[in-house]
């Protein structure tokens, strides 16, 4: 039966269900499929900290939001056009994020008495029977029942059959958006290749969902979102942590060094450890240490031995690593410390996003302890940020903090990936072996104020380093007052000097002079750019600059800020970059802060911007 296909420009769809319903997987598979169709996209997975939070409850709702379109997509979308709700709690938790007139696809089997009670609906109240859903297009599907029926011939237990209901839903969506099943079939074959019964059941459920759309007369429309006009080239879909992993390996290869990764499991950074552990054939050495401190200390040992050494964690782990970071900066050894930020302080909000570790990165150590910090701005940008963090660490002999966050770590977007040959090589020089009697000076500095990297095992360079203050040149322990002051200044100057080896700050969009500059850093890139784009279209004289380098700042940042009357800084924290800009440039700024564990929405920032900018637009010519 052929049904009409309606073309849509963009769609935001959210998959919501119990944390055991496989919503993250369903969302990821739909995303991969969408990416292959050529649409631009951005995702936002949102899940509870508990692996299996109490079934059916509001606390246990796991969501995955995907925004895709045939035009440039910069954010995962404020409101959903389509909500897939696997049970009553999923509906209740997400109803307020639905745009009027949007579509709700419901698993009616998830609305029995028990589910309604767990979702805290009033006794006797059932949203399926009330006026609550008036104004929405509601698609009611008995997903559990239909999946069981589709799998009637399967030898699996009912419990295992029920685990396939996400595939039924996915199949239905593939029908609705006129997709091919191939990418998911390939995935299932890979995952369940050795368990034929499970493989068959998942494929059957997927196909059953697809055919259900095709055969049920009630569904008259299918939709299609065309490919986006992206720059020419080869693309793949990528998540932030995955991009970070690849960036580290690429940097190691381009530097000609083995990669060492020391880490302790922590949300949301663990996927970096998992990712790297799977790439042993790239010579990657992963070490799951006994704690956060051991993870960074082992990395310091590996760096001393000449590896590209990296450790990764999130906020609480950063707190534990601070003393060792101080050691690394005193030793002046290369080290990359990845912080995939989450809501803090303390254990905070492990699965929610926040940008609140910026000041910790810059100041969270004892003594005068400058450490360069850079931030990734999108899932794919995690690749470039990781590559750059490694370059700075290796070429400037310093620990470098790389800031990502939960939002981009788990978010995905299409990536026009580079060829290996296009990546710049990272030149690393070890001090060479020698036979003469000339003393080796481990703390002698070159024109960048960088000391030599002398590896144990190199003939003629035996030397001792440590956390006690070093004498300039010799590196011997020194308590000399003037020497200490000199070394403090030297370590600072070394980090400041990096500004000469990084690019100047550029605008992502907007005029070089104007009413306001939106200055962002990290994962707010897509949001701020898309808001500024809209404001420009509305006639405001605004621009957007997004900081990758947070220490040292790009050398032109001060002059750039002077080109605008107002500096607006949106952050998912209580105003941390604001403090830095105020203190470094004596320039007041206008903060916009949201600290709710979720990204800032376009509507929120745009509303704030209009309020701040008022009627500053020039009159639109008639």
């Amino acid at each position, binding site marked *: 039966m052929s049904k009409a296909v309606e073309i849509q420009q963009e769609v935001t769809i959210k998959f919501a269900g119990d944390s055991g319903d496989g919503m993250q997987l369903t969302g990821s598979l739909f995303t991969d499929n969408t990416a292959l169709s050529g649409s631009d996209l951005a995702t936002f997975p949102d899940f509870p900290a508990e692996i299996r939070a109490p079934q059916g409850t509001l606390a246990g709702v796991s969501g995955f939001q995907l925004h895709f379109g045939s035009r440039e997509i910069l954010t995962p979308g404020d409101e959903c056009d389509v909500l897939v709700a696997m049970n009553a709690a999923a509906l209740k938790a997400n109803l307020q994020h639905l745009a009027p007139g949007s579509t709700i696809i419901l698993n009616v089997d998830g609305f029995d008495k028990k589910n309604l009670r767990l979702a805290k609906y009033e006794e006797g109240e059932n949203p399926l029977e009330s006026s609550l859903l008036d104004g929405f297009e509601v698609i009611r599907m008995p997903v559990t029942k239909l999946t069981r029926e589709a799998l009637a011939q399967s030898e699996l237990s009912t419990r295992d059959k029920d685990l396939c209901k996400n595939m039924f839903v996915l199949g239905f969506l593939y029908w609705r958006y006129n997709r091919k099943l191939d990418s998911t079939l390939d995935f299932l074959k890979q995952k369940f290749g050795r368990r034929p019964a499970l493989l068959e059941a998942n494929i059957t459920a997927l196909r059953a969902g697809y055919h259900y759309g095709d055969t049920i007369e009630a569904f008259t429309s299918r939709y299609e979102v065309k490919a986006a006009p992206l720059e020419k080239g080869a693309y793949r879909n990528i998540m932030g942590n995955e991009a970070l992993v690849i960036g580290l390996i690429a940097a190691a290869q381009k530097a000609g060094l083995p990669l060492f990764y020391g880490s302790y499991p922590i949300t949301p950074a663990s996927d970096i450890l998992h990712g790297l552990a799977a790439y042993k054939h790239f010579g990657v050495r992963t070490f799951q240490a*006994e704690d956060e401190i051991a993870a960074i200390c082992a990395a310091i040992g590996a760096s001393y031995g000449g590896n590209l050494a990296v450790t990764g964690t999130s906020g609480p782990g950063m707190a534990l690593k601070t003393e060792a970071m101080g050691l690394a900066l005193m030793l002046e050894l290369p080290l990359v410390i990845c912080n995939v930020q989450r809501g803090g302080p303390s254990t905070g909000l492990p699965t929610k996003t926040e940008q609140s570790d910026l000041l910790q990165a810059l100041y969270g150590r004892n003594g005068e302890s400058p450490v360069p910090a850079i931030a990734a701005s999108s899932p794919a940008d995690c690749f470039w940020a990781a590559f750059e963090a490694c370059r700075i660490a290796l070429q400037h002999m310093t620990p470098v903090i790389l800031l990502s966050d939960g939002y981009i770590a788990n978010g995905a977007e299409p990536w026009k990936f580079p060829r290996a040959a296009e990546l710049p090589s990272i030149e690393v020089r070890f001090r060479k072996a020698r036979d003469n009697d000339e003393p080796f000076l481990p703390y002698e500095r070159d024109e960048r104020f960088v000391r030599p990297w002398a590896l144990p095992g190199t003939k003629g360079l035996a030397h001792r380093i440590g956390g006690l203050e070093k004498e300039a040149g010799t590196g011997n322990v020194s308590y000399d007052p003037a020497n200490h002051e000199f070394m403090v200044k030297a370590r600072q100057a070394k980090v400041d000097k990096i500004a000469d080896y990084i690019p100047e700050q550029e605008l992502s969009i907007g005029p070089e002079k104007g009413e306001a500059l939106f200055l962002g850093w990290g994962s707010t890139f897509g949001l701020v750019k898309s808001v500024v784009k809209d404001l420009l279209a509305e006639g405001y004289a605004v621009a957007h600059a997004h900081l990758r380098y947070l220490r040292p700042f790009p050398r032109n940042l001060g002059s750039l800020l002077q080109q605008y009357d107002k500096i607006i800084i949106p952050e998912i924290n209580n105003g941390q970059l604001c403090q830095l800009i105020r203190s470094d440039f004596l320039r007041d700024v206008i903060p916009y802060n949201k600290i709710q564990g979720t990204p800032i929405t376009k509507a929120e920032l745009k509303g704030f911007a209009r309020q701040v900018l008022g009627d500053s637009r020039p009159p639109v010519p008639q």
Partner: protein
Amino acid sequence: MARTVLGFEAHETYGANKAKTLRTNKGMSATEGTTIMSAKDFATSQEVRWCPGCGDYSILKQVQAAFAELQLSRDEVVFISGIGCSSRFPYYMETYGMHSIHGRAPAVASGLKIARPELQVWVVTGDGDGLSIGGNHLIHLLRRNFGIKVLLFNNQIYGLTKGQYSPTSEEAKATKSTPMGSIDHPLNPLAFALGVDGSFVARTMDRDPRHLKEMILRCHAHEGTAFLEIYQNCNIFNDGAFQAFTEKESKADAAIFLEHGQPLRFGSNSEKGIRLDCFRPVVVNLEKDGFSAGDLWIHDEKDICKAHLLARFFDDPARREHHYLPRPFGVLYAAERPSYEKMLHEQIAAAIELKGEGQLDELLAGAATWEIR
């Protein structure tokens, strides 16, 4: 930023001058590799700053002597330490070295050993550094069995912070931080090391240089983690802590020296021995109790159960009575187990064998790509 750079430049002259005048690092012999290394070749130009009379001097001397005996290359050895008196050790060894942070030397050494398995990596630590703040890392170093040698200087006191009790201090010890006596139960380092499945566990003392050197050589020969507890006298804050084991008049009765394949005998005329009565070690007097050497416990370094019993010979020598079990010195346990770094590199080799050497272009492209034309 300009401010700090200017500040740095103002002091630059100071740095340059200092660098010229302070080139005190000892140069390397031009012909190393063909020269015979002496103990002195392992000494640095740095003035040794332990207190006069400290037991650390003896340990330093015996390590240098053992390394000369082994003809180790100075370039292939790395000493990693934490914080404390003992942890100044790397500064006095003309090898590579790192004086790291408190308690973390085992972790630093682990990373180094993964990066560079061919290096000889030694950890120097103390009872506070290794068993208190760094106890966790020592657990995991021992169970993973890295090819690293650990010298734990046990003086039963915090020396560098001037005399607080340590995890190995005896009960009721009065110190600055325990004016009414310590209520901490002391930790038994060898029982600890065996408890976490250390593959080589031994004890020696600063005052017996011959035995000390022998144990250092045994550590060197061991493939996995070698854990050597060294009783070390802190003559400032805990003088005479191990007197019973080190002084001539009491040593024979208070200490027992283990030798693989030999019966457990002690006493000034070797008249006493240890017999196993089922699982209970019993002190017998060969001259009075009617037992012969053949009835005694024969030491077997490979026997983990007996090693656990030996580690429990922890009686207070001050209360030496009839049933007193002498403190054992020597190798309690030595077993062969593959080292962590060996297995790690074998896995990498196996992955390359299985999948072929990783290709960056394939990694960048991932599993599924599409083309925008």
